[in-house]
């Protein structure tokens, strides 16, 4: 039997399982805390900080996706301090990455009244699109560094460990070993990373080519050629587990 705790979320008294995170507890009573990096099937890393809430007595805001509930806790999920952070984070994201194909993020931005041009003259992250395999393209201009692809490629799902990071800070980018093309990496083209990408930074090649205006028979031709090239070429990379 698990113990329960009593706490207040937005002044409403609730009782819940003590193992829940604040995010889970809030959702259980219909309070919706926004999240970006959080994914039900990935390890929560508390990166995006959209889920921050104010907990009485805490010096800073608290990431509700990882912070557990506790007895007597008083949580506010949408006060001014909290929304200021969320709005600013969204505004900074809008001035950094191409979010044009992230409808959920755009909706969140309008919900928080985020100004798309607040940091209009900011240096955007705009690396060139990487088209190095027949399955999918990597357009890191759209990447928000939620880490989901790295996580599912590693211990969260596939154990392929094909990708990690290059650089750090603002100039971090997802990368293979020494920036090698994916076919030369330990990538098994399982597609899990595409599935969890929230911004279409990772996109099936067919979809990408359709968007570029190619007809489907042209696309068949192009990808068929690529595939036959690939099967003829001997694999050079060695997997390290």
């Amino acid at each position, binding site marked *: 039997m698990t113990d329960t705790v009593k706490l207040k979320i937005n002044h409403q008294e609730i009782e819940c399982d003590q193992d829940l995170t604040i995010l889970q507890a809030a959702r259980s009573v219909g309070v919706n805390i926004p999240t970006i990096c959080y994914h039900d099937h990935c390890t929560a890393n508390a*990166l995006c900080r959209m889920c921050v809430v104010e907990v009485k007595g805490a010096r800073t805001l608290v990431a509700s996706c990882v912070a557990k509930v506790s007895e007597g806790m008083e949580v506010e999920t949408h006060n001014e301090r909290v929304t200021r952070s969320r709005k600013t984070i969204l505004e900074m994201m809008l001035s950094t990455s191409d979010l044009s194909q992230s409808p959920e993020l755009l909706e969140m931005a309008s919900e928080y009244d985020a100004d798309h041009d607040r940091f209009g003259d900011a240096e955007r992250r705009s690396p060139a699109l990487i088209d190095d395999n027949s399955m999918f393209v990597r357009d890191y201009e759209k990447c928000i560094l939620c880490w989901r692809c790295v996580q599912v490629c590693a211990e969260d799902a596939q154990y392929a460990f094909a990708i990690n990071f290059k650089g750090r800070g603002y100039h971090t980018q997802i990368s293979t070993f020494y920036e090698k093309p994916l076919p030369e990496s330990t990538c098994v083209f399982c597609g899990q990373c595409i599935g969890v990408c929230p911004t279409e930074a990772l996109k099936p090649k067919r979809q990408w080519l359709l968007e570029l205006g190619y007809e489907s028979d042209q696309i068949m031709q192009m990808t068929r050629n690529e595939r036959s090239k690939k099967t003829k070429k001997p694999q050079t990379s060695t997997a390290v587990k």
Partner: protein
Amino acid sequence: MRELDLKPIQKTISLLAPQGRTALLPLLHETQDYYGYIPETVAEEIAKAIKVPLAEVFGVIEFYSLFFKHPNGETIVHVCNSPACAMAGSESIYKLLNQKENLKYGGEVKPKITIEFAACLGLCEHAPAMLVNGQPMVLKGLQSWEEIFEPSRKRPQTILGGDIHRLTKNCGKGRRTSFEQYLETGGYVGIKKALSLDPREVINQVKNAGLVGRGGAAFPTGLKWEGAANAEEKTKYLVCNGDEAEPGTFKDRVLMEDDPHLIIEGMLIAAYAIGAQKGYFYIRGEYLTSYTHVKEAVQEARDAGYLGENILGSDFSFDIEIRRGAGAYVCGEETALFESIEGKRGFPRVKPPFPTTHGLFGKPTVINNVETLANIPIILSLGIEEYKSIGTEKSPGSKLFCLSGDVNKPGLYEVPFGVTLRHVIENLAGGMRSEHPLQAILIGGAAGAMADPSQLDVNLSFEDLRKEGLPLGSGVIMVFDETRDLRDVLLRLANFFAEESCGKCFPCQLGTQRQYEIMERIAKRKFKNDDIHDLEDIIATMTDSSLCGLGQTAGSAIGSAIKKWPSLFSNPETQKEFTGGQND
């Protein structure tokens, strides 16, 4: 391309690889020391040997700024770009060196010299500071620029002063205090005393002495120890945080270079108190001399039976492994430092759980700053009463302050807590360097706050500074006279945080960059109406929502300047009252 000879490194790899992933940074250091960079094939060999995925090894190489993926010059010059060094002309030196370089080699062949900017080299009292192949280089007294590349110049001497010399008893003598010299001056008395006590009693003494951490966060040391001592697990670790990299800070460097046995003794006592069998001494990558001196001292202590099995005939066994950082300020954050020792990118962890229960390798760990640990043998050997006889009631003991900038005698000063800022600047550091009056003082470090001349009479104690809204931080006092452009100073601090953000959480990853961009514009006097509002929102977001202490304090100095001198951030056409920053 010529085949790379892997033989020289293979021996080291097979020697260290059994340690597993924790050997990654040491192996990368060895590789770079030998080849001058990390060749891809060597990275592959290392990955296989320690069974870490290739992409993750690459991620680690990429995280640390001292690791290079491509061949470099035979000589690597780091020019310090922190406020103190910039004021002393480091930017001109950088430009000049590059010009000379281009003239000589035409930029076609592989450069003989690689010249890079560094955020802060911890040589603020020697501004403008440089490292040439890791060795500190002081420009004072140089006749020509070629002399910079001449080897075997003497290690620069730090001015050491103050009202009292407890922590710095053996410092400033132009040498590393040897084991014998340390013993002669009453060293290793504290550990003997500790071993005669119950570990609980040792913790009580540290608690009663009122010691709080000197790394910046000021957490009560005894309480931290108690947490780890109470933890159930058998394996525990004691880590010494010598990853000092806060701009304006060089106190730990002086202690590590001049009196490493004091820190080792502090580690011994701490380990005994919490029941740790193994310690790690993590030293900033740029601090080569500290590394060498600590390494020598650890060996001396081991040879004399002060480290190893059954220390001084007791049941207590403890040994120290030294680790070098590789150019990442964030690794001074305790959990990021653990990640680094574990062979990973230095990403701070989500807390809780706290290190005292889940620290290094997931085990209960105490991590203390160098200066904190240096206080421990003093507490034990002097006794609590004597220890607390100086300082204030709430801040007992002495404190090291790092004076830099426009003072006559920049250097390291030890004073009892509670003396005034004026006393340190005017009486100890010899006052202002020139006839220009004082404009501002950066207190606590890059993550600190700005003080103005009206605050000179504040007492330097945790409680008095807090009242003034000034953090003691890592003991930085960086002084700016009236000719200094504070916008440029703040721009450099903003640049520092943008460079050093690890990129893990969004508020800091994005906020440090946006803050830097706005400050860059403001430094060029290109103001926008919303600048203050934008900066305030960015700073509030970083402070409130960042994952670790780096992000939470990355806007602290700029935020304090906005409160004090809003006119710095807006159009001088409409704001005339500001008189500083005339040198543009």
